[in-house]
């Protein structure tokens, strides 16, 4: 074997191992963490959206219950029926949640295996085309002597590795900056959503605020209006029984609805933590990556040595 050719092969093999070291293996933990963050966003957005809808529905139910029980005294005044939050207030929240979802989706796309698959397909296509040139005899005309087929395969593998390296270099240079720039806004968003949801009042009526307070009060009102409705109505025993049974059901729903909002706040906290984890170096993942790298390095070295032995 020609020493210059051996040096070229050594260089290509070194390049392949080096690219594997600083390219493909390093991305696996980030992809995992991006998927966890994307999963957290997909889990959090629907219940947060549902929280605003629930309060609107309960507030409306409270208005209807008040109308029913006070109808003989006050009549119906259409202008009294109003939403709890304005259309603009809800639109801001919808847009910010959509923006968060779009950000998470973009992160998932850019770290997904799609680019890797497309790169493999493109380099395989290049390799096949070069082999085609070999079969057509174009290479032998161009280089005066035949180019070994395994050299073409090795060059294709090196090209593939180089492509992966370039993609990973782009990612590793830009993504950490984008993610760390977004940590503060994501924390701020989490704080604002948690503040929107607020807290239920204690037994003294203190500490209540936001959606949880409004929901709690709306159910208190529903219970009182339901009780007044029963007191003022001339119901038959079966109807009366059904209406009375609604009282404890309302109390139970009040507690369950509040617990759901509390759980939503916890989910928002986890989302913020999941974003924080994107910017944090994962030692376990790194160790796994290094182990995978070493195995891959040995495989490439064995492949290369096998090629050399075959030629000699």
């Amino acid at each position, binding site marked *: 074997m020609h020493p210059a050719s051996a040096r070229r092969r050594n260089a290509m093999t070194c390049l392949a191992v080096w690219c594997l070291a600083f390219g493909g293996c390093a991305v696996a933990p980030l992809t995992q963490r991006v998927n966890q963050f994307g999963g957290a966003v997909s889990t959090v957005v629907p219940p947060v959206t549902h929280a605003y809808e629930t309060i609107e529905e309960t507030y409306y139910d409270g208005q209807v219950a008040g109308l029913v029980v006070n109808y003989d005294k006050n009549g119906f005044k259409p202008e009294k029926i109003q939403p709890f939050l304005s259309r603009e207030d809800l639109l801001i929240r919808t847009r910010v949640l959509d923006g968060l979802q779009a950000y998470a989706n*973009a992160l998932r796309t850019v770290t997904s295996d799609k680019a890797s698959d497309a790169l493999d397909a493109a380099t395989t296509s290049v390799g096949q*085309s070069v082999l085609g040139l070999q079969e*057509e005899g174009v290479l032998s005309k161009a280089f005066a002597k035949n180019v070994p087929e395994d050299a073409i395969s090795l060059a294709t593998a090196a090209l593939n590795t180089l492509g992966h390296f370039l993609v990973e270099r782009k990612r590793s240079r830009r993504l950490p900056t984008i993610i760390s720039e977004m940590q503060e806004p994501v924390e701020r968003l989490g704080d604002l959503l948690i503040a929107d949801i607020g807290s239920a009042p204690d037994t003294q009526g203190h500490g209540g605020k936001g959606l949880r307070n409004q929901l709690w009060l709306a159910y208190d009102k529903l219970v009182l209006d339901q009780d007044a409705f029963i007191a003022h109505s001339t119901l038959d025993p079966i109807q009366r029984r059904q209406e009375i049974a609604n009282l404890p059901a309302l109390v139970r729903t009040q507690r369950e609805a509040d617990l759901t909002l509390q759980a939503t706040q916890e989910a928002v906290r986890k989302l913020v933590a999941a974003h924080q984890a994107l910017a944090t170096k994962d030692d376990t993942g790194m160790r796994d990556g290094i182990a995978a790298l070493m195995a891959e390095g040995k495989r490439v070295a064995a492949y290369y040595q096998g090629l050399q032995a075959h030629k000699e």
Partner: protein
Amino acid sequence: MPGTFDDQTRQALLDAFGALHQNLQQAYWAATSIEAQDRIRGIEDLVYDTLTDLNRADIQSHDDALSQLINGLAQAKGKIDELQGQIDLIIHNLKVAGEVIEAIKTASTAAATALAQLQG
């Protein structure tokens, strides 16, 4: 108006009216006549409306900060999309390389065929 209060004052009002609401609730269930209950409920409706205004104002006080975050999220997505574009370009360049080689092969085959015809 509840919207004009700072956070601390608003919370103090929420606590004060919240305590009143709690007392009225207890008074309602303790009342022995429907008339007394109706009077308490009438006051409770006013307290409920005030607490609703305060809760609404509390949530609306986050509107500006949330609006600012919409732009930040859109900009971050734009930067990620740009990065995706650069990655796509690397893959595109590799595809083009394959296409160029394919074109060389086609041209070479055509040239060989033409040469054979000329020699024949």
